[in-house]
């Protein structure tokens, strides 16, 4: 064959030497690869490249490849992406958090300065009216699980709930209130330690199961392909 100085994919399928080869007699002279560039240097570089996107994804966290976290206006809106029971519980948890932790203002105008005109609601408190932001919607979160399979111990008490399933499939989800903002957007909650907000699409509520290959009897007595 014709020796070539370099080997590129373009060369490889464009070069007519390989087309129409029918075995013996066609390739006289040099019979070996023109250039074999493989070395462990190449491997480690390749592996470094491979490892990068995987870093930190080893756990069960759904956030890595997840869709954009999403604000749900209603349980029905949420149920388009998630389990209905998950959405019901998330709504309830959001309402509870709003009433317990949302800032209280003595003046409606002070509240509206933060959250927007018409975005605050008044309630009769023990010492008169108080004003607090109304819920624009809510977000659904999921608590990362620790190595022991339970929600991380640094989650604040009550941050997660088990959706009534007793730690079953809907365990570890959270619901957090979302308010309006005076600049026209939303005020979204800050994620708590270990909490990831979910959206639609890849990573939303998906679960990846691993370890289903490499376990047949064959793999126990040797990995050699022969």
């Amino acid at each position: 064959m014709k020796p070539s100085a370099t080997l590129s994919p373009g060369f490889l399928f464009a070069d007519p030497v390989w087309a129409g080869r029918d075995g013996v007699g066609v390739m006289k002279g040099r019979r070996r690869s023109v250039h074999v560039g493989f070395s462990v240097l190449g491997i480690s570089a390749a592996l470094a490249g491979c490892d990068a996107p995987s870093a930190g994804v080893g756990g069960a966290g759904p956030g890595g490849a997840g869709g954009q976290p999403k604000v749900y206006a209603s349980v029905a809106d949420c149920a388009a992406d998630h389990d209905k029971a998950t959405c019901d519980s998330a709504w309830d948890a959001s309402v509870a958090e709003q009433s317990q932790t949302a800032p209280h203002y003595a003046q409606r105008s002070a509240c509206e300065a933060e959250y927007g005109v018409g975005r605050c609601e008044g309630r009769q408190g023990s010492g008169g009216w108080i004003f607090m932001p109304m819920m624009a919607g809510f977000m659904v979160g999921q608590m990362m699980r620790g190595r022991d399979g339970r929600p991380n111990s640094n989650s604040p008490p009550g941050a997660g709930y088990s959706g009534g399933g007793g730690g079953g499939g809907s365990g570890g989800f959270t619901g957090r209130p979302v308010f309006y903002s005076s600049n026209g957007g939303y005020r979204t909650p800050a994620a708590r330690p270990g909490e990831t907000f979910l959206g639609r699409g890849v990573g939303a509520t998906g679960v990846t199961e691993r370890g289903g290959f490499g376990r047949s009897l064959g793999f126990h007595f040797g990995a050699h392909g022969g």
Partner: protein
Amino acid sequence: MDRVSLTPRPDWRAAVEARGLAWHTGDDGQPYWDESAYWRFTAEEIDRIEAATETLYGLCLEGIERLVGRGDLGLWGYDPTAIALIEQSWRERDRHPSLYARFDLAFDGRDLKLLELNGDTPTSLVEAAVVQWWWLEERFPQMDQFNSIHEGLVEALSGFRRDAPAGQMLHLTCVRPHAEDEGTIDYLAACAGEAGLPREVLGLEEIGWRTGDGPGRFVDLADREITALFKLAPWEWLLADPFGDRLASEVLGGRLRLIEPAWKMLASDKRLLASLWEMFPGHPLLLEATTSLVQAQGYGAYARKPAHGREGANVVLFEGGQAVASASGDYGGDAVVYQRRARLAHARGSRGEARYAVLGSWVIGGLARGLGVRESSGPITSNMAQFVPHLFEP
């Protein structure tokens, strides 16, 4: 073909490690990569080996065509799922590319005979494609070697990239930890890179099955969908795994392609040898082979091989009805094939010990692309057999 002794390079371990061969020494401390000798061929012998390899590949494809067409693979113990996979991949061969296969040939200087074909998971690839190439480059640069394996791999992977959707990623996997298999898929990943394919290497145990946010699918560690997977693991093992049924349905549904494709199960089933003899009796490149013990006893000297055995495991050699040599292994319950004994190339080592050689002849993308010689001290070539480089005078 003859064996020439020479002194290894003083730093040969470091030299071969630098070329990707970490598994150069066996568990017993003996070199697996053995450059205290090389096998020297004539250009005419290389021509014969090359032509024979392509002829044999053609015969094997005809044999598989007949096995698939006859529709009775159930008699060989394949279940309906495996049969559906084999039939699909054979019917759609253009969509299910095959990268490589290795024929093991016996050559006594006169007769060249097919011992067996490993079409699904052949190894000793890095040794043949890379390490002996560099050995020649350093020791005998004026000589030639039957070895354009690397070019063949890059060319075949380039073809795969060209035919695939833009941005197609190739995932490569093997069981881990396993220095040899991991080194082999790292090498193939490097070839894929040279061919311009995005690629990702991962362990078999790391492959995930993702559900709950769309159709179920196989994913890598970053939860990216796996749609093309090179697997250095036999099909029958993967199908027996907990994920085996899903694997089958993804492949049958056209959402996942494996390299090698499922029809390669037949290209690594040694009963194919009996089929070939049935179809091409007396072919000069074939040894008589049968699944019938009665017929085999008529051969006088024959080998009994497990249908799915690898690296010589559970092979027993018989002469006059007596077992004269055997290898241990874990394929004891497997179906068997009987094959008339062939004469292997043999020589004396530097300490006077017997050396038997088997030629591993590589088919890459359908063409004969190179040679690797494995040497053993007995007539059964096992996983302990040394890899010895070769050359020929151009």
